[in-house]
């Protein structure tokens, strides 16, 4: 009994020492300096032990900390210079396996110390732990829920790989799968009563497709919208700003649109009201209009003013698409007939530009703005189509010319034929 109490006191004291923010109190131990040579007894012994005890040594050489010259003792304490079991003497600061709850403070000893971190990367943030404590994960952890994610849940352990290492669980394209380990697990999430479909939805989304299938690192993973260390669901008031990290122009259009105020009033999130959350699909023109599948119909009843505006916006887009298609066809036809249509390329290109612009202007929810872009586009498409028609006229002109030439040749041949008939064949007659 006495022994156990002594142990508890020791552990408690050690925990206090570890948890104390470094640099703020004189009693706090300074972050361990990187040892010159990581010659230690920890890996030496553990490697020979086999099984669970040897596992941490296996890939430890890839660990970002080991690579920077830290030894096991940097996290686990103890004296790696001591050759035997005395290396794990709690009096030498040995803590063994730190509990999950203690991890933020343990990692924070260094990672929350700007002066220390500057030595390794002057630009690196040092607010991870602070942010973590604001997250749902962090707040639950503090309250004693050890099922929630803590540092190693996402970053891994033995080895902890650099984020830029493509094997790291927090490498951008690995993030969704890492989050899904818990958030797509029905049994694991059951006590929390939150959905588990986000990962599947994200995979089907335009963002998931870009990141997971095309490997585009610019596409957002979970953390780009939810925050990584400070992960929380984005609130209604922040959605537009979250999306605007990439889609700034749409946000700028939306915030001056007539939708902003009513959305705020109804408690509707700005972008997600139409585009959804995790399963954001490539937007289509069918999303605009007065009847489903148009998203406008979710609020605007048929026959209402809003529905009429939605219909008008849609038809402006359709008109431009139609004009563009007609122009493309006539230009292709002329090109196919052997005409050089380089001149039509510029207006055709510009009309396409106007279509993309008009589609984006839908976010302004302003019929006038969409229409003005679309009308300009229709004009450009007509100009291209006119060039195509002129080329087709030129073909017709060539054919008329051909007919004239053939008639002339026929007349001449007829004349020659008659002439030759009048001559007859000598010796024949």
């Amino acid at each position, binding site marked *: 009994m006495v022994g156990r109490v002594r142990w508890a006191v020791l552990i408690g004291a050690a925990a206090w020492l570890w948890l104390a923010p470094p640099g703020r109190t004189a009693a706090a131990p300074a972050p361990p300096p990187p040892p010159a040579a990581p010659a230690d007894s920890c890996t030496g012994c553990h490697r020979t032990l086999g099984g669970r005890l040897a596992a941490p040594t296996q890939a430890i050489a890839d660990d970002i900390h080991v690579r920077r010259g830290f030894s096991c003792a940097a996290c686990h304490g103890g004296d790696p210079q001591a050759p035997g079991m005395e290396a794990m003497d709690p009096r030498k600061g040995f803590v063994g396996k730190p509990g999950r709850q203690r991890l933020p403070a343990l990692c924070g000893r260094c990672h929350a110390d700007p002066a220390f971190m500057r030595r390794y990367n002057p630009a690196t943030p040092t607010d991870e732990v602070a942010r973590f404590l604001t997250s749902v994960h962090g707040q639950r952890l503090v309250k004693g829920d050890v099922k929630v994610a803590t540092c190693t849940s996402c970053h891994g352990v033995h080895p902890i790989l650099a984020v830029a290492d493509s094997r790291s669980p927090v490498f951008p394209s690995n993030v969704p799968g890492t989050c899904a380990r818990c958030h797509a697990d029905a049994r694991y999430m059951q006590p929390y009563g939150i959905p588990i479909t986000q990962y599947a939805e994200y995979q089907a989304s335009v963002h998931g497709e870009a990141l997971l299938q095309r490997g585009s690192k610019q596409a957002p993973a979970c953390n780009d919208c939810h925050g990584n260390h400070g992960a929380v669901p984005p609130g209604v008031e922040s959605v537009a700003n979250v999306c605007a990290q990439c889609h700034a*122009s*749409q946000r700028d259009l939306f915030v001056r649109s007539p939708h902003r105020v009513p959305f705020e009033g109804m408690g509707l999130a700005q972008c997600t009201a139409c585009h959804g959350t995790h399963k954001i699909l490539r937007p289509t023109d069918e999303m605009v209009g007065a009847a489903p599948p148009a998203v406008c119909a979710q609020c605007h009843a048929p026959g209402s003013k809003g529905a009429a505006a939605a219909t008008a916006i849609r038809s402006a887009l359709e008109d431009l698409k139609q004009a563009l298609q007609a122009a493309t066809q006539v230009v292709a036809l002329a090109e196919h007939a052997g005409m050089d249509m380089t001149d039509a390329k510029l207006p055709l290109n510009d009309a396409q530009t106007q279509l993309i612009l008009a589609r*984006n202007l839908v976010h302004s929810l302003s019929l006038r703005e969409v229409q003005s872009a679309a009308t300009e586009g229709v004009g450009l498409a007509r100009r291209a189509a006119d060039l195509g028609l002129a080329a087709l006229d030129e073909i017709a002109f060539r054919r008329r010319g051909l007919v004239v030439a053939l008639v*002339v*040749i026929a007349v001449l041949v007829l004349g*020659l034929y008659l*002439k030759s*008939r*009048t001559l007859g064949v000598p010796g024949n007659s």
Partner: protein
Amino acid sequence: MARPPLRVTRRSLADYLIGTGLAGLAGTILYPLVRYLIPPKVREVSAGSIVAAKVAEVAPNSGKVFLFGGKPAILVRTPEGTFKAFSAVCTHLACTVQYRPEIGHIWCACHDGHYDLNGQVLAGPPPRPLPEFSVTVRGDDVIVTRPA
């Protein structure tokens, strides 16, 4: 007595047809020939370079979109008066970009993409910079050349 006049008529018809035909043939050959020899107003172009504009045509702090190798390109004259040329195809969704004098750089209207006067992305969705062309001024001509 009916045959000789007929023969004469046929012969003269043949001569008439030949005469008309020859005149017509000369016309149908000479007309295209002469038109062919008249040099077209448009300058000949090669793939590698093009006369994008006249110097006087582009004032300082303005731009001009032109067609280069079948694709839009943009010639920009900086406020200092030097010429720069880039592909005018936005690297985001291939809209045609334009020069905005009031902000002094290249802008894509579609999704508010901004490029500086080195073609580098300043803001917005474009994933890559605009490819740059080299510009030389020869006399009154601004000649844009594709890098080899």
